[in-house]
């Protein structure tokens, strides 16, 4: 019996391959996600571990605030001298390098004067003491280290991609106008092949301090004398460092660095695996459908086995064994396809401006085990129902011939309705009340979506007939007799058509859900930004969200035609234990360029109180933290400097895309408190020209001036990138459903061999046969779209409703839905190519004799 099952699989190679393909892609996605994220993780690990290769302890400024642009507190040269005097210390060196933060950003400028920026990947500026090479994680590839104030060493990627060679001059923009340096060397970071779009520039320590406006060092690396353990060195150092600094052993520091990256990598992993899961889910549908059809077509064979003495259990086992073999085969292929896919995913991310660091690919045992198990189990589970149906084939079919047709099962419909109800309940739970975002609501949302989709698949067979009447109209109208037959054929076996369409439905439902959600967020951000920015021009950094030099704002203000300018400083601070976005505004000019939504009696005149210790507080932040008018509180800057502030008024920015943060203070106070004050935005009024502004900003290549509508557009452009990424990832499941459609059509054509022969005999041309198959495919695809798109819109409506308190509104993008329908029709036509060809090439005579 085992032999029968395995030989059966071999005997239907094409079918087996087509069926397996459905799982191959899902498994590939899973294995690719693992390989990619393991590789990223390794790249980061090697970045961090090479940073501390010959280091025993690291003394650095404490990190008080996350995501600050001015960075952590620094450590002083005096401390370095004192550390060097300690008995257990063999060597110590100060360095300027902040791998996790934004404070040592130094943007390299390409030969056309543009900042080299790969979608927001870090642009590191390092200051390295090359007299202490043991602490230097960088490895020189050619040239020598920077020795003078005008020398720089750059990374190999930038040298190669931007055609820089040793001896060339390169511009670097940091906390001021562009400065030019001579390239004296090229170095790579440890053993990392690519930093994933990140660039670095290595200076002497004084040059780095000057360029980046950093006093002292970001960290001091310490090596112990031999025989002294890391921990005893650490405890010794702890006795001499000031309160704003911390001492960690090198291992601790590396672990700490990795932790922040770890959560980033596991987010990407979860994200990608989610799409792998969707692909497997769709694949399961395809497997289920194909095996169901195959079992029906093997009625006589299975019945013969029964007459020869096979028990039901043996039949069950043989069909399950077949799907298990298929699963193992598909998973193995998928595993390796995934290795290639990992590269593809990596380029996909960098194509969308999300460069990820690269290293030699990591093939972990876990990847093999999980991918193999997942693919095999999903295939077996999908094969259970068909296998059970195979056991129900009565032996008498061996003599009677014919196919045991699956009757539309009442059970499936009942289960479908039950699932729909469950889905609605879960969705209702997830989106009502204030739960959204909590763990339970996300779970309910996922379960609800899954239940809705499965439920829709369950009841789809009841809808097929009606949908085919509506969606088959063009076929009947324009497809001639072939089209009319096709429309009829689509409803001959509603269950089969339904589950074929269901696979496509899942992909389309998710795509349209994403489209609705994306448009909702996009539109809301759009109107939110428009409601805040009332100035005709806005200056930002190139990427639109990181800070840019204060001097650039001043330069823009002096551009011809600018009548009024107001810069907004931006950074983060901490009040008590709460981290908060802090902005510094110019009270005299901000009022005319930024629209405040005043609350609790505050008004435009409140701005006059923004001098000294006056602070405007975001109303919702004030409520949450119990700050009332006149309250005094202490704000700590990222370097730990305190400033005492007094609440003088309240305003409320939109709930999405707020340009100003929780605390708004006067610019003078801001500049006195934050060590490396940078502008977030500079708002301009008047009628400057684009060229005039560009000219004024020429020394600041990392900035750009945009009109208000350009600004709005670029601020929301990440949404389109994100949508495109989601579309690409969801396309995988559409491709899988395409495989399912091909499968069904091939099997259907095979089943109708005699009938097609008959149609040919009565005068149907090959062309008409092809058209008939194609139209049936299109009608099936449209049924998938007919259920999937409304379902997706419904899901989108539910989620946007729940997000309405974050200012997200429900918006349907009709062009997107039309596009998706066209994609569905295209999928139908594509799926029909091979089966239609096959049908049209049938030899009429042998088709008629076919038994």
């Amino acid at each position, binding site marked *: 019996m085992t*032999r029968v099952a395995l030989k059966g699989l071999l005997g239907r190679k094409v079918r087996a391959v087509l069926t397996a393909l459905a799982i191959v892609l899902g498994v590939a996605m899973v294995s690719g996600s693992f390989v990619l994220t393991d590789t990223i993780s390794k790249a980061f690990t090697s970045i961090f571990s090479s940073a501390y290769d010959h280091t025993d302890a690291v003394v650095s400024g404490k990190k008080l605030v996350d995501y600050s642009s001015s960075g952590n507190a620094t450590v002083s040269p005096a401390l370095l001298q004192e550390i060097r005097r300690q008995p257990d210390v063999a060597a110590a060196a100060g360095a300027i390098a902040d791998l996790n933060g934004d404070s040592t950003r130094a943007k390299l400028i390409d030969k056309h004067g543009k900042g080299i920026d790969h979608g927001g990947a870090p642009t590191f500026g390092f200051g390295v003491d090359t007299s202490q090479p043991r602490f230097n994680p960088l490895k020189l590839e050619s040239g020598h280290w920077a020795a003078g104030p005008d020398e720089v060493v750059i990374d190999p990627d930038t040298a190669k991609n931007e055609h820089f060679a040793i001896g060339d001059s390169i511009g670097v923009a940091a906390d001021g106008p562009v400065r030019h340096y001579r390239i004296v060397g090229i170095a790579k970071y440890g053993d990392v092949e690519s930093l994933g779009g990140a660039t670095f520039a290595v200076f002497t320590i004084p040059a780095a301090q000057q360029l980046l406006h950093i006093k002292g060092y970001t960290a001091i690396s310490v090596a112990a004398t031999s025989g002294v353990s890391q921990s005893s060195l650490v405890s010794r150092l702890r006795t001499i460092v000031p309160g704003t600094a911390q001492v960690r052993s090198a291992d601790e520091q590396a672990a700490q660095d990795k932790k922040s990256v770890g959560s980033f990598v596991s987010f990407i992993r979860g994200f990608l695996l989610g799409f792998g899961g969707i692909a497997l889910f769709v694949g399961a549908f395809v497997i289920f459908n194909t095996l169901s059809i195959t079992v029906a077509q093997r009625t006589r064979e299975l019945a013969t086995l029964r007459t020869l*003495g096979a028990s039901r259990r043996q039949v069950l086992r043989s069909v399950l064994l077949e799907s298990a073999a298929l699963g193992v085969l598909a998973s193995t292929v998928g595993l390796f396809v995934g290795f290639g896919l990992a590269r593809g995913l990596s380029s996909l991310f960098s194509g969308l401006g999300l460069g990820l660091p690269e290293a030699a690919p990591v093939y972990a045992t876990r990847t093999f085990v999980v991918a193999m198990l997942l693919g095999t189990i999903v295939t077996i589970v999908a094969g259970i129902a068909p296998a059970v149906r195979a056991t129900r084939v009565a*032996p008498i079919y061996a003599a009677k011939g014919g196919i045991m047709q699956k009757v539309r099962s009442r059970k499936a419909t009942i289960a479908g309705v039950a699932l729909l109800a469950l889905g609605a309940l879960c969705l209702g739970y997830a989106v009502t009340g204030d739960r959204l975002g909590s763990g339970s609501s996300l779970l309910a949302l996922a379960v609800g979506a899954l239940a809705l989709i499965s439920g829709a698949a369950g009841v789809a067979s009841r809808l097929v007939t009606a949908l085919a009447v509506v969606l088959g109209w063009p076929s009947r109208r324009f497809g001639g007799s072939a089209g009319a037959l096709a429309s009829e054929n689509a409803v001959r076996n509603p269950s089969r058509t339904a589950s074929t369409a269901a696979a496509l439905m899942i992909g389309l439902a998710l795509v349209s859900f994403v489209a609705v959600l994306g448009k909702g967020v996009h539109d809301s951000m759009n109107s939110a930004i428009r409601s805040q920015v009332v100035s005709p021009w806005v200056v930002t950094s190139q990427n639109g969200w990181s800070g840019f030099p204060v001097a650039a704002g001043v330069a823009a203000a002096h551009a011809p035609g600018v009548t009024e300018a107001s810069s907004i400083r931006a950074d983060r601070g901490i009040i008590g234990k709460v981290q908060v976005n802090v902005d510094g505004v110019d009270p005299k000019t901000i009022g005319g360029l930024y629209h405040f939504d005043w609350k609790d009696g505050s008004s435009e005149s409140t701005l006059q109180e923004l001098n000294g210790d006056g602070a405007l507080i975001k109303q919702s932040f004030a409520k949450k933290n119990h700050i009332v008018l006149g309250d005094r509180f202490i704000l700590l800057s990222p370097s730990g400097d305190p400033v005492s502030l007094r609440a003088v008024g309240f305003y409320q920015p939109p709930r999405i895309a707020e340009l100003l943060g929780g605390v708004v203070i006067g610019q003078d106070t801001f500049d006195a408190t934050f060590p490396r004050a940078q502008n977030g935005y500079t708002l301009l009024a008047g009628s400057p020209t684009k060229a005039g502004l560009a000219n004024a900003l020429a020394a600041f290549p990392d900035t750009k001036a945009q009109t208000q509508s350009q600004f709005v557009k670029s601020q929301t452009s990440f949404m389109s990138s994100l949508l495109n990424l989601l579309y690409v990832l969801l396309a995988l499941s559409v491709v899988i459903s395409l495989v399912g459609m091909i499968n069904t059509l091939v099997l259907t054509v095979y089943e109708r061999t005699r009938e097609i022969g008959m149609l040919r005999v009565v005068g149907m041309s090959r062309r008409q046969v092809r058209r008939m198959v194609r139209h049936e495919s299109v009608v099936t695809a449209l049924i998938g779209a007919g259920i999937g798109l409304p379902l997706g819109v419904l899901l989108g409506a539910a989620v946007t409703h729940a997000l309405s308190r974050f200012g997200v509104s429900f918006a349907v993008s009709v062009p997107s839905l039309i596009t998706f329908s066209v994609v569905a029709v295209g999928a139908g036509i594509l799926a029909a190519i091979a089966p239609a060809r096959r049908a049209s090439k049938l030899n009429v005579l042998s088709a008629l004799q076919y038994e």
Partner: protein
Amino acid sequence: MSAIALPLDDAPLGFTQERPLVAASGLVRRFGEGSNAVDALRGVTLDIEAGRMTAIMGPSGSGKSTLMHLLAGLDAPTEGSIVLDGVEITGLSEKRLTELRRDTIGFIFQFFNLLPMLTAEENVTLPLSIAGRKIDAGWLDALLDEVGLDDRRDHRPSELSGGQQQRVAVARALVTKPKVIFADEPTGNLDSTSSKDVLSLMRRAVDEWGQTIVMVTHDAGAAALADRILFIADGRIVRDLEESTAAEVLAAMQEVSSR
């Protein structure tokens, strides 16, 4: 080939056996319900003796196939009883029916029903491997030699002619040495030469090995090779002839059909 290999040799052949191998009484098979109900069999009682070839003939829709399905346990009668080798098979559990098919019954079908992915030899031994029994190589060689397919062992069904395929199917039915083989129109899909080969093969199995065969056919030539011919019309047995010539069978058939 020695006949000693067959268990049937323990008992004297045919009529001398004390009880019939298959005994059916009062068989009614009704299809459909209420006003749509159709009685395919309307009370059939018959005995089939061991070691003989019995043909069941009748016009289309006479109920001959239904009768065979009931006797072979492929279908259950609406009324009546069937005793096969001393066992009442109506109402048997699925498990007991499976055992019955393994041990007692062999089948030959009109469309051969070979598994396309298995070789001729694998098809023949399939019932043994399903039952998990070991293959007696001597018996298998003798069988393949007898059906004339010794040199075609490794061919797949698609590489064999219709007659060869049906001979593989006959060998498959014989391989477990069943008490009775039910053949459903075994020559219905064959040309006349192949039909003769297959029929003579079946005949030899009866004559030389004492095999019992029940064959449904509408081919008078095939029926003429049987030891006994039952004519069925309208769901009832209407004639019961002992060994006859093809001409006699045809005449009887004419008479039966015109009633």
